[in-house]
């Protein structure tokens, strides 16, 4: 391995991070510098952004490109749970033509704008009653699975995938297969076959949903319709489920925090912001590469340098958040970068906020005695995605009368 030009030695993402407790290395890196050397899997020596202000700067500066899509090196094991396999030409074209995280500027904007309206604050409000029903049903399923049950499998994942199907417009009779494809993992051809069925259902019977909007949009090719649906299905398959289950761990780790919400459920919206800050899932978000020399934090990032932003580290930056390692549902955590920042920020964040709000509200009002039995989230996490994100692990809970 070649020495880094800054003399700090080459660096890789550490393997000892836990979803509620990032590796201590991040704090040391943050203390040392806003930008530290980071190795990428193709051998490129780039940079990691460790601090909050610089994270926002990089993520919103259009002089950084989404290309090439390098992935950071990590000592953690990679386990995305998705089998590989062949995919027909139409499916391959669909995926290639809508790689929204690999596009810049107007190309990206055109595709994003085709679906933004279905993820607005108003859309979240419209969906809230149905989301509350789904949450109530899954809460009964959690209780029925007890006296000790996995909150990830019996509550968080079903809510996440059912709401995803609702917003996108995947019909109810396809939801079980949709969950199989995009939560549990299925080969690429199975996923695309299912998405095509979902599209045909809406072509015959349009609704107020993403698929119907895509089909009504004359500006989009058939490949783009299928590709955008695939991209949106892959993007939300695990994030909300991760956040419901990991947020529950954070709340129950300090029982006082859970009791605070039990006593006053109106604190839940603020608690959701703190949960996504504290339990941020992306150790790094999709890397950016400087298209010209860029000045950040009193240094020049040379054109061609790939920069990964650690949203986990930025959300623990003591320059922005007082006592950042304390989990406090009464804190004003708004302004965190858990949903990313800039033109590629999470498109589903307002619907996600409604889901998280309803899920935690249901837990603290219906299960005030909830207790944590054990969880894989208290162990160093494998990566669910090379960019790199934490994997969701079982969260065993108890504390209700059947």
């Amino acid at each position, binding site marked *: 391995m070649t020495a880094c030009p800054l003399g700090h030695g080459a660096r890789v993402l550490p393997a000892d991070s836990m979803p509620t407790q990032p590796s201590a290395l991040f704090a040391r890196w943050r203390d040392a510098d806003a930008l530290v050397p980071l190795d990428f899997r193709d051998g490129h020596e780039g940079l990691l952004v460790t601090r909050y202000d610089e994270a926002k700067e990089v993520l*919103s500066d259009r002089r950084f490109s989404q290309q090439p899509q390098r992935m950071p090196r990590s000592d953690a094991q990679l386990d995305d749970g998705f089998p590989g396999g062949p995919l027909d030409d139409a499916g391959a074209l669909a995926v290639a033509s809508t790689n929204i995280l690999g596009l810049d500027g107007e190309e990206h*904007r055109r595709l994003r704008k085709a679906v933004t*309206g279905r993820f607005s604050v108003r859309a979240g409000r419209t969906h809230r009653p149905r989301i509350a029903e789904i949450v109530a049903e899954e809460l009964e399923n959690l209780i029925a699975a007890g006296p000790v049950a996995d909150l990830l499998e019996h509550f968080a994942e079903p809510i996440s995938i059912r709401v995803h199907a609702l917003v996108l417009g995947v019909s109810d009779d396809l939801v079980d297969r949709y969950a199989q494809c995009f939560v549990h993992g299925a080969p690429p051809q199975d996923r695309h076959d299912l998405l095509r069925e979902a599209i045909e259902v809406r072509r015959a019977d349009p609704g107020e949903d993403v698929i119907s909007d895509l089909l009504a949009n004359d500006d989009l090719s058939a490949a783009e319709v299928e590709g955008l649906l695939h991209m949106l299905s892959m993007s939300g398959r695990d994030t909300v489920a991760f956040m419901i289950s990991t947020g529950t761990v954070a709340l129950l780790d300090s029982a006082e925090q859970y009791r605070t919400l039990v006593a006053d459920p109106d604190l839940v919206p603020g608690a959701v912001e703190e949960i996504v800050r504290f339990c941020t899932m992306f150790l790094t978000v999709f890397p950016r590469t400087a298209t010209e020399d860029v000045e950040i934090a009193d240094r020049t990032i040379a054109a061609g340098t790939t920069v990964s932003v650690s949203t986990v580290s930025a959300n623990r930056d003591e320059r922005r958040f007082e006592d950042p390692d304390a989990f406090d549902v009464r804190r004003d955590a*708004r302004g965190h970068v858990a949903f*990313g920042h800039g033109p590629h920020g999470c498109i589903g964040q307002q619907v996600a906020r409604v889901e998280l709000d309803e899920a935690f509200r249901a837990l603290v009002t219906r299960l005030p005695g909830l207790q944590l039995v054990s969880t894989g989230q208290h162990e160093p996490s494998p990566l669910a995605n090379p960019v790199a994100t934490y994997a969701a692990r079982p969260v065993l809970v108890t504390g209700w009368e059947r």
Partner: protein
Amino acid sequence: MMQIDVDRAVCVGAGQCALTAPDVFDQDDDGLVVLLDPNAAEDPESEGGTAVRDAEALCPSRAIRVTG
């Protein structure tokens, strides 16, 4: 007096403004920012003024500018 400007050309539809200051900002059918009331927060010290400033700070695409 506080002047609010929105730039729909850079808006990415994250919705933080409509969440934070719903009396002042909305999103259209494409999810892009709409300024409902340019004079909503004439007093920068008022609660409405605080919400508008928060919305400006929380916008991930710098589509909101508050001056004055």
